[in-house]
């Protein structure tokens, strides 16, 4: 059996995996979102409201939260169409902060004092969602829709000129990413059984992005590796006491210096899967 402490860490990995996937999906179309903690917050508050106030079963609450966040993602996706690179990143950051300050003033669910009353979920439940989402993304990666997303990522103008609806692709990615982040939020709320707006701040969005960049930004499985490292590495470095976060930072820089595309990329993944099927 694993200890409560270890179970907590693994739950964090699962939740971070979902958050990282939400960034990965949007990034697959070439859009960097620094506001996914906003979608996570929306998911957390909606799911909690539905389970605590309306006594919905958690699964139904998560699905409903995902739909709402997805719709909001589409709404965010429209202005995002006109922005690129760093400007888009800033705008999404603004969205995240907007959501956070909304819940800060949302007294109906506690405002800055936070909200509680959720039932704790099992580690297995969290991982069923996390693994499900990862498998879904890995399946989609082999579809023609994903190719279209990557085409938009590589050269948006050319994508339009070979017949792809780039607008739909980019907005769809925001909708999908928003939904996945909302699931992460709903699970987070029922893992910690307490939420406050500060849980869904800028640092959380950065964690998502970091997990993707560290694990590998061109393959979905990269998010798993990134999420695991981001949660577990600081734990393994505990023997360094006060220096552990600094050491973590150094490791991060080293990885990115040697592998700009992250730890995993398509070439490495192809090699690994080939070797496995060969042996």
């Amino acid at each position, binding site marked *: 059996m694993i200890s409560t402490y270890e179970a907590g860490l693994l739950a964090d990995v699962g939740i971070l995996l979902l958050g990282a996937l939400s960034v990965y999906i949007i990034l697959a179309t070439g859009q960097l979102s620094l506001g996914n903690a906003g979608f996570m917050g929306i998911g957390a508050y909606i799911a909690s409201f539905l389970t605590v106030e309306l006594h919905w079963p958690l699964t139904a609450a998560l699905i409903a939260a995902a739909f709402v966040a997805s719709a909001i993602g589409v709404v965010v996706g429209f202005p995002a169409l006109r922005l690129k690179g760093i400007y888009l990143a800033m705008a999404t950051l603004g969205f995240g902060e907007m959501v956070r300050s909304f819940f800060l003033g949302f007294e109906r669910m506690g405002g800055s004092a936070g909200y509680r009353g959720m039932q704790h979920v099992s580690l297995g439940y969290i991982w069923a969602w996390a693994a499900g989402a990862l498998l879904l993304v890995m399946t989609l990666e082999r579809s*023609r829709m994903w190719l279209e997303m990557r085409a938009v990522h590589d050269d948006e103008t050319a994508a339009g000129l*070979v*017949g792809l*609806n780039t607008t739909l692709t980019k907005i769809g990615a925001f909708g999908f990413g928003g939904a996945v982040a909302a699931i992460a939020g709903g699970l987070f709320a029922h893992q910690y059984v307490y939420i406050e707006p500060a849980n869904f701040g800028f640092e959380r969005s950065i964690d998502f992005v970091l997990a993707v960049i560290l694990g590998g930004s061109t393959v979905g499985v990269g998010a798993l590796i990134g999420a695991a490292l981001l949660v577990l590495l600081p734990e393994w470095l505990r023997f360094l006491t006060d220096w552990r976060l600094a050491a973590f930072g150094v490791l991060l820089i080293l990885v990115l210096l040697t592998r700009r595309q992250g730890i995993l990329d398509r070439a490495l993944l192809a090699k690994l899967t080939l070797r496995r099927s060969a042996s």
Partner: protein
Amino acid sequence: MTAAADQALLRLTRVSKTFGGIRALSDVSLSVEQKRIVGVIGPNGAGKTTLFNVITGAYRADAGEVALAGESITQWPSYRIVRAGIARTFQNIRLFAGMTVWEHLLVAQPHQGAMMRRFLPARWADPAAWSRAEETLVLFGLQNYRNSVARTLAYGIQRKVEMARALTAKPKLLLLDEPVAGMNRDESTELRRLLLQLRERGLAILLIEHDMTFVMNLCEDVYVLDFGAVIALGNPSEIRRDPVVLDAYLGREAAC
């Protein structure tokens, strides 16, 4: 007039495009009929690529009309124009840098059948697209590059991939922007053979090219553009003898 209009696959009627006071295209009228290979020549800056950009919706014409098979497509977004039947290549090759040759051959194909199909692994959900990609791979002799990533390919191969990608969109009309630029004689002969073969399959081709031998040997009609206007139109031998053309273009080049 109307009978002729019905025959033309692509028809531009008095199309103009201005960029901040510079008339890149003025009153250009042009038509391409089914199964024709039409060339556009002219000195640098004559507006040839602008013409392609207006036809494919990358730019909007300020005046005039672009029609495909009698239907006006002047205001359509690019992706709709491609789906209606006009595919193109670019003067400065534009591939999807991180994608393999194989992925290029899948990505531009029109979607057919159930909507769900595009979300499922293409290999088994869309066997028609899969086999069409396979066919195109063989047609262009790209089998050895199947899993090569675009950015690692040699220039000549990149040109082929771009053309192959355009073809998988199942166009009725193919626009080629300087297809033999950077190709050696063997490669351009091979391309000429391929284009004739495609024409036999019912494709119309409109191409911009600086290589006069290539244009004169391949095209049935040639338009000459200078300062954004059509200054001559005819078959290759007419164009070769046209004094206006000799003065504006061929003469100038000979003088260089």
